[in-house]
């Protein structure tokens, strides 16, 4: 597929100049039909173009025609008579504790004077009420445009119910929108003129335009041809059509520059941009300029995988994953000091896309508390993160990816983990659990901490052909069973007992002493049967996160306590 350097790129304003357009920084009041139809920018996904204006934030006013409520957010479908769009509106944490306070207001009302606590409570209550809407109410939403699963939606930064008893607000909205379009959105974006000389500003913006086109062209070429290494003169030919087409359009603004000089300058700038982005790099700084492409760098891939594999065995990283800066310093030690963070991120992203046991965990742009709970749970975690973060909307995205092992069996499974603190933009990665091939309970051992109990010695053989003895006590088995029965009610026989496939666990002892050797020995056989049956269940259960986590080695299994 040849890169069309002609019109498609020329239409889009180069990303370096977007900040100059006031529409970009404002919440644009657009018709919903325009929001749904506008194109996503080729240069930066997440930014959209309405005619010549780049934008990503919008402001809509419309009737609620669809409502979906969850614990932590509302999803309202808004109709403004030109189109309908979903608006994701996160609930504010402080409203969730409004339940009792609204009832304990002063009933007498005879208290004179200004009781600030009461007034604050009433204010909070009013705020909360303004976010609870029903179908038919008028809603105003200001937020960012997102495309998720092929559907456009708005992630609200601010949303509230509009009281419009005589339709005055809607009428005003209908009257002002056409004016707004005529004055702003439909007007082509004009570059602000430089006072010193129009040509200077024009020249530099022209160069920027050229630069973004050449960066895009080079990126697509490297991707398409799967280039691993190249020299500058190998890719020079890609820039020829750009310079040729532009010199045909206008007289050269710098008299005396030859075609060759222009090409060289453009090439130098393009390569420097790509280096800064981490897409290409130079392994050895010699006179011979050889550039390597990050995505194809196998050594870097293996270095990253090794670091992750080793580190995620350690307790510090096992549940929470490895912060990207940690990976950066480890990989620098083994691979090359000359590794930029952008390059690492590029590589990680490429690894995550390919079938590999590495999964991306999360991406967040805020500071999270370090005391993150060690029992991750999807829904709770998400709401926890959004509540604690300064931002309410989607700065936290959790990615759960189905991956394939690259050795030892080709089972697919989904796996995810959660992160703890991150100072700034961060991405965290971890290795996933290996599957369990065989299980055998061989013995029972007495333990004294935290109190006297017995653990079962289980010999586990993993899919990477290693085996290990793990130590698990009965209560952990019980917890696991509860989790599985909760998660798989049908397979647990809740609907139809005949359909139960999940094995039975020997019962919990409630009324006599349970921490005696006799009990443990008697249970051993049943625990063994249970484990064997469990790993022979269909993969959605036998390779579920709970089961694999249970059978995965913990630090205490590697170095058992005395």
């Amino acid at each position: 597929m040849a890169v069309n350097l002609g019109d498609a790129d020329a239409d889009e304003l180069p990303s370096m100049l977007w900040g100059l357009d006031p529409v970009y920084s404002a919440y644009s009041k657009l018709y919903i039909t325009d929001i749904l139809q506008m194109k996503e920018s080729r240069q930066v996904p997440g930014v959209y173009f309405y005619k010549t204006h780049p934008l990503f934030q919008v402001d809509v006013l419309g009737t609620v025609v669809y409502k979906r409520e969850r614990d932590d957010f509302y999803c309202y479908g808004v109709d403004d008579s030109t189109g309908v769009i979903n608006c994701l509106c996160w609930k504010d944490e402080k409203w969730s504790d409004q339940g009792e306070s609204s009832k304990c207001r002063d009933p007498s009302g005879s208290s004179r004077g200004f009781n600030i606590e009461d007034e604050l409570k009433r204010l909070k209550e009013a705020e909360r009420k303004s976010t609870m809407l029903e179908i038919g109410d008028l809603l105003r939403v200001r937020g960012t445009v997102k495309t998720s699963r092929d559907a456009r939606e708005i992630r609200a930064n601010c949303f509230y119910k509009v009281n419009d008893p005589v339709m005055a607000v809607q009428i005003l909205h209908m009257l002002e929108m056409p004016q707004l379009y005529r004055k702003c959105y439909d007007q082509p974006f004009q570059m602000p003129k430089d006072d010193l000389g129009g040509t200077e500003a024009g020249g530099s913006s022209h160069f920027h335009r050229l630069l973004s086109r050449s960066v895009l062209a080079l990126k697509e070429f490297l991707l398409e041809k799967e280039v691993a290494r190249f020299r500058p003169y190998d890719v020079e030919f890609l820039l020829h059509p750009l310079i040729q087409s532009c010199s045909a359009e206008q007289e050269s603004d710098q008299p005396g520059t030859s075609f060759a000089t222009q090409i060289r300058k453009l090439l130098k700038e393009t390569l420097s941009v790509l280096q800064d982005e981490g897409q290409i790099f130079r392994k050895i700084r010699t006179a011979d300029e050889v550039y390597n492409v990050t995505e194809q760098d196998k050594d870097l891939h293996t270095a990253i995988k090794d670091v992750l594999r080793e580190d995620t065995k350690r307790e510090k990283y096992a549940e929470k994953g490895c912060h990207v800066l940690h990976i950066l310093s480890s990989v620098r030690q083994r691979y090359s000091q000359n590794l930029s963070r952008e390059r690492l991120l590029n590589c990680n992203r490429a690894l995550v896309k390919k079938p590999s046991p590495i999964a991306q965990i999360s991406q967040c742009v805020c500071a999270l508390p370090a005391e993150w709970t060690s029992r991750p749970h999807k829904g709770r975690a998400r709401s926890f993160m959004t509540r604690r973060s300064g931002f309410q909307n989607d700065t936290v995205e959790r990615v759960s990816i189905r991956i394939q092992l690259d050795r030892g069996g080709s089972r697919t499974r989904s796996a995810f983990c959660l992160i703890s603190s991150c100072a700034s933009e961060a991405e965290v990665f971890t290795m996933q659990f290996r599957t369990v091939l065989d299980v055998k309970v061989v013995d029972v051992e007495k333990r004294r901490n935290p109190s006297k109990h017995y653990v079962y010695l289980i010999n586990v053989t993993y899919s990477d052909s290693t085996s290990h003895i793990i130590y698990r006590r009965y209560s952990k088995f019980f917890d696991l069973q509860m989790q599985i029965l909760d998660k798989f009610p049908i397979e647990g026989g809740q609907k139809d007992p005949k359909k139960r496939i999940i094995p039975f666990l020997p019962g919990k002892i409630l009324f006599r002493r349970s921490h005696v050797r006799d009990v443990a020995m008697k249970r051993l056989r049943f625990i063994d049967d249970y484990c064997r049956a469990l790993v022979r269940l269909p993969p959605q259960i036998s390779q579920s996160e709970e089961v694999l986590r249970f059978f995965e080695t913990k630090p205490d299994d590697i170095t058992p306590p005395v």
Partner: protein
Amino acid sequence: MLPPPAVFHFLWEISTDLVKDGASVRTYGRLISYEPEESKAILSGQQSSAQYNMSVQTTLVEPFQPTLGAQYFVLGEIEKTDGLSGAILHARTLSNVDGVDLTLLQKAIMEQRCFFKERLPEMNVQAFNCKPSYMKNL
């Protein structure tokens, strides 16, 4: 999953061919009768000294406080039945907007329509009187 957008129409346009069967519309009118047992309300509007009536199926928006003589704003789907006079609007939302400035509302709807017609180049030759009354010199 999301319903289609409801376009603004006047009562007198609904019985004509401008509005297709099954289309989603927004409209408004004065409530002149309401039968709770059959969930049927009748809205009426006036244009060039002619009265236009339309029946509205209110199953989805009940219960509501009917105020006879008040202006109501309704959003829903049109069902055209051949034989019976007029169309039936199955209301999804119904709200009392008594006190609304009818002339202003009408102007606003026309203004918006004009603008949409302008945006579609060379397509529909104007069926409406396109005089944007609020257009200033740009």
